[in-house]
Structures are given as structure tokens and as C-alpha cells.
């Protein structure tokens, strides 16, 4: 039980990175707004980031690489359900638990720090739900693609580290994209990273109009379609390679 509790603690701490960024940026904004971000906007942004990470987080890449390298993926392959369905079920099943554990913190921050989550418009709510579902799916598929590289390279997790490094900058995780140089923000709009974090957060806290959010939702789901095609194609090829790691 000690192992589980400590693992749980590490997970909670790793989930809290947006709160660290929130503290940092609200301190920076104490002397005046940064761009159009005042203190309250930063609180809203990073609270939104925290919520999106709770709802759309995934750890597939670690599980998949480990199972391919150790050969334990074989057990899943013998079941009459596609392993990615099984993985997705496990990960989605964890969302309610995350919500239960972390929602008190969200509520406290919402009331105490005065975050803004303008979700009165049903159309906006629908877009937010689709954007968060899309963020989860996109991250899941990206992790599936990178995880399957374990059938080809010895350390797929290093590839994922590269992805994470790019994602932390180009998704708006560390700094809201609109505070970045204009060309960085432009580049970020045509890359998938923003659609995993920044876009659902911006939609959730009302930084984007419904029309812009809908357009971006379309882009997000285009990325999802592309990732899905890549996942299916790579899955078939990776399974042939899995031979060498059969265990």
C-alpha cells in the first residue's frame, strides 16, 4: 500500500505543474497585465490547463513501450479485443477517479482565486466538450504512435521526451501562446501540440470566439483523423516487428 500511496503522491505532484505556472505568472502580472493577461486571466488559464490535464491526460506511451519491450503485449493480443481499445478503456476509467480526487482543488481555486470559466452558452459547452474529448484522443493516438516505435527503436521513450519538450512550448503549457512571439504562435497553430492543451484551454476560459473555436475544432479533428490513419498503419507494421520482442 505504501508503494501505491507514494505513486499517487508523485502523480498528484506531476499534475500540479499548471498550478506552479499559475503562481509564477500571477506574480509576474502583479505589476500590470502581460499582453491581455491580467492576474485573473492567468489564474483562469492555468486552472483551465489543470482541468484539461485531468480530463485529457494519458500515459499510454509508457505502458505500451514497456509491454512491447517486455513482451507482455502478447497477453493483450490473445484477447478478442483490440489492445488499443483495452488501453483506452483503462485510461478512461481513471478519469472519474482523477476528477473526484482533484475537483476539490479546482473548486477552491475557482472561488478563492477568482478564475473565469464562462460556460453559460450551450454551444460553447458543446465545443469545449468536443475539444477536450479531441485533446484526449489526439494525445492518446500520438502516444500510441510513439509507443509503437518501441518495436523499431530501443528507446521510444526518448522520442517521446522530444515530443514533450516541443509540446511544453508549442502547446501553451508553459506560456500562453499569444504571449509568445507572433511567428511562434503562427507555427503552433499548424502543429498538433496546441490542439492537445492550448486550444481546449483557450476555448474553456473563453479566449476564443465560438466561430474561431469551431474552426480550430475542425483543425483538431483533422489532426485526429491523420493520427488515426497513422496509428492503424503503424500498428499493423509494428505487430510484424513485435516478433523480435516476443518474450
Amino acid at each position, binding site marked *: 500500500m505504501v508503494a501505491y500511496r507514494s505513486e499517487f503522491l508523485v502523480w498528484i505532484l506531476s499534475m500540479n505543474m499548471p498550478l506552479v505556472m499559475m503562481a509564477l505568472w500571477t506574480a509576474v502580472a502583479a505589476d500590470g497585465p502581460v499582453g491581455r493577461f491580467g492576474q485573473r486571466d492567468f489564474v483562469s488559464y492555468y486552472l483551465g490547463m489543470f482541468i484539461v490535464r485531468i480530463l485529457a491526460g494519458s500515459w499510454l506511451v509508457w505502458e505500451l513501450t514497456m509491454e512491447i519491450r517486455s513482451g507482455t503485449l*502478447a*497477453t493483450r*493480443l*490473445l*484477447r478478442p*479485443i483490440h489492445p488499443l481499445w483495452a488501453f483506452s478503456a483503462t485510461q478512461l476509467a481513471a478519469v472519474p477517479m482523477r476528477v473526484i480526487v482533484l475537483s476539490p482543488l479546482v473548486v477552491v481555486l475557482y472561488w478563492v482565486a477568482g478564475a473565469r470559466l464562462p460556460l453559460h452558452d450551450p454551444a460553447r459547452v458543446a465545443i469545449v466538450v468536443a475539444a477536450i474529448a479531441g485533446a484526449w484522443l489526439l494525445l492518446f493516438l500520438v502516444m500510441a504512435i510513439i509507443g509503437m516505435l518501441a518495436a523499431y527503436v530501443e528507446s521510444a521513450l526518448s522520442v517521446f521526451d522530444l515530443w514533450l519538450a516541443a509540446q511544453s512550448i508549442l502547446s501553451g503549457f508553459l506560456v500562453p501562446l499569444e504571449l509568445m512571439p507572433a511567428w511562434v504562435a503562427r507555427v503552433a497553430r499548424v502543429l498538433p501540440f496546441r490542439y492537445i492543451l492550448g486550444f481546449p484551454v483557450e476555448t474553456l476560459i473563453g479566449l476564443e470566439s465560438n466561430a474561431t473555436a469551431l474552426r480550430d475544432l475542425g483543425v483538431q479533428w483533422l489532426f485526429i483523423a491523420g493520427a488515426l490513419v497513422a496509428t492503424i498503419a503503424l500498428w499493423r507494421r509494428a*505487430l510484424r516487428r513485435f*516478433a*523480435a520482442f516476443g518474450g
Partner: protein
Amino acid sequence: MIHVSNLSKSYRVHRRPPGLAAALRSLVRRKYENVHAISELSFDIAPGERVGFLGPNGAGKTTALKILSGLLYPTSGKVTVGGFTPHERRTDFLRSITLVMGQKQQLLWDLPPAETFAMNRALFDLPKREAAAIQNELVELLQIGPLLGKPCRQLSLGERMKCELVAALLHRPKVLFLDEPTIGLDVSMQSQLRNFIRHYNETTGATILLTSHYMADVAALCPRVIVIDKGRLIYDGDLKALVRRIRPEKRITLHFSSVPAPGSLDRLGNCVSHSESQAIMSVPAAQVTDAVRAALEQLPIADISVEDPPLEEIMREFLGGERPGTGGGTP
């Protein structure tokens, strides 16, 4: 039920000598070589058969089982199991087979076995009542009732293996691939599992292909054996016929009530081992009756038994040198 024709499987393996220099060199120029795990393997297994799949370490047994269960793609050749091509891994195929690997587990490590059973029931889409009936029957046969609520990580190896079997058989597979199912178990537990496997085969008519390094498993379960070495078929046929070919002699074990006279054993056959209270003689099968009669008449016998030589010894001799070829006993 199982048809294998000219099956070959080769792996591309990276090789390099040890040391830092070789490691750095291999970053620039990697050397690969093809390892042939299975070469031109062919056999057929009829529904309901129990077949032992034997061979030394690295012979290709596990690779073949993995191909048959759809985990690996063959390099060439044709394989069908129950009419399905395994590597396509169609749902109906996966519902009809099971692969139990003694060194791998499918039980959820942190949860009690009952949770794995419930998960498998859902994954295989088994009706609740039917699954419960099968589970109860298997649990009773293997006597694991008290273990169902215990976390898997706290079970002993033997207890876990029994639970593995229940998890693997809940969906009533028609084909069982068993890879070292008794590895690491004590003699009593091995015997229990063997009885269970035989019972399952006899009551369901399932086809069983079993690999084991414990020859007792093979002797108890498999009338037919397929022997491969370096990926090639070297024998396919009746186990007893193989034993007769390799060692046409029988073993007579004599237990004495008093120390026999010196030289009195010489007339019976070759003495394999002896002490004051016991002797093991090797006698040609045709002369066993005469030898037993002579022993009873001339020696202070307390007990006597006649057996085939140990299968381990026969396999060691077979794989070490003599090759009688395929037995032609494929049903």
C-alpha cells in the same frame, strides 16, 4: 484442427562484439544476421488430440506456439488452426484458442483472480450465468475457491498457475497451446495440473499442444510427440514407438529382502545400478518375462516392477545422436 505446412520463421538479429569500441562502431555500421528459428516445419493435428511438442532449448517450440496462436507472423509457409489463419487474429479465432505460458501471466497482478475472471468474462462476451457455471466447475476441479479473493501478487507460484488455467479456459477454448505449464511447480502440483488438463481434454474434446521440459508431463498426457531441433522436424509420431526405437529395453527394478549372492544379477541382463537392497536391470523387451521369472526364482525378491527407461534419458539420447526420422504416425 491444426495444419502446418512448410512453416519457416527467421529473425533479423543485430550482433556485435562486447566493448565500448564495438558499441561505438555499431552506431555507424550495424551488422545483422538472419536467425532461422523454424525451417520447413510441417505437421497436422486432429481435433481432440493431445500432442507433446518437444525439443532442446532454442529448438523453436515457443516460436512455433506463438505462430500457431497468432502472436507472430510466419516468414513463409501455411498455418491454419480450426480453419483460421492465426496471424490475422480474427475475433472468432481468438475465442477458440488459448495460450498458457508458464513464465508469463495474464492475471491482473494487483487484483484478486476473481477480477481477472470477471474481466475475461466481459472481454470474451460470455453470458453471465454460463461463465459462472464454467468458473465454478474449474474452481472446484482445481480447488482454488479460497484463493479467488486474494491479491494475485500474494499467491504462490502453483496457486497462480492454477488461477492462470482458469482464466485461460473460462471461454472454453477448443485448442489449448500450453507452453511449460508446470514449470517451477512441485511434483504434487504438477500432477494435479496434468490430471486437470487431461480431464479438460476428455470432457470437452479440446485439442492440446504442449511443450514441457518435464518429461513426466509428456509421458502422462501425450500419446503423440512432435520433436524439433534447430527449427526442423526430427520426429512426429507415437511416443511409445519412439521409446521402443531409441531404447528397445525395459527397466526391471528389483527390491531385495536380503543381500543377493555376488554375480547372481549377471544372468538377468545389464545392471544399470545396484545397492544391497535394490538393483535396476536393463533387459530387452522380448526377454522381460524370462528375466522376471528367473529373478523371482533365484533372488530374494521383496518387490519387483517393470518400466520403460526414463523419458528424459531417451530424449537425451535421441537429441544427442541417433535420429530415427519421422515416425509416420501422424493421425
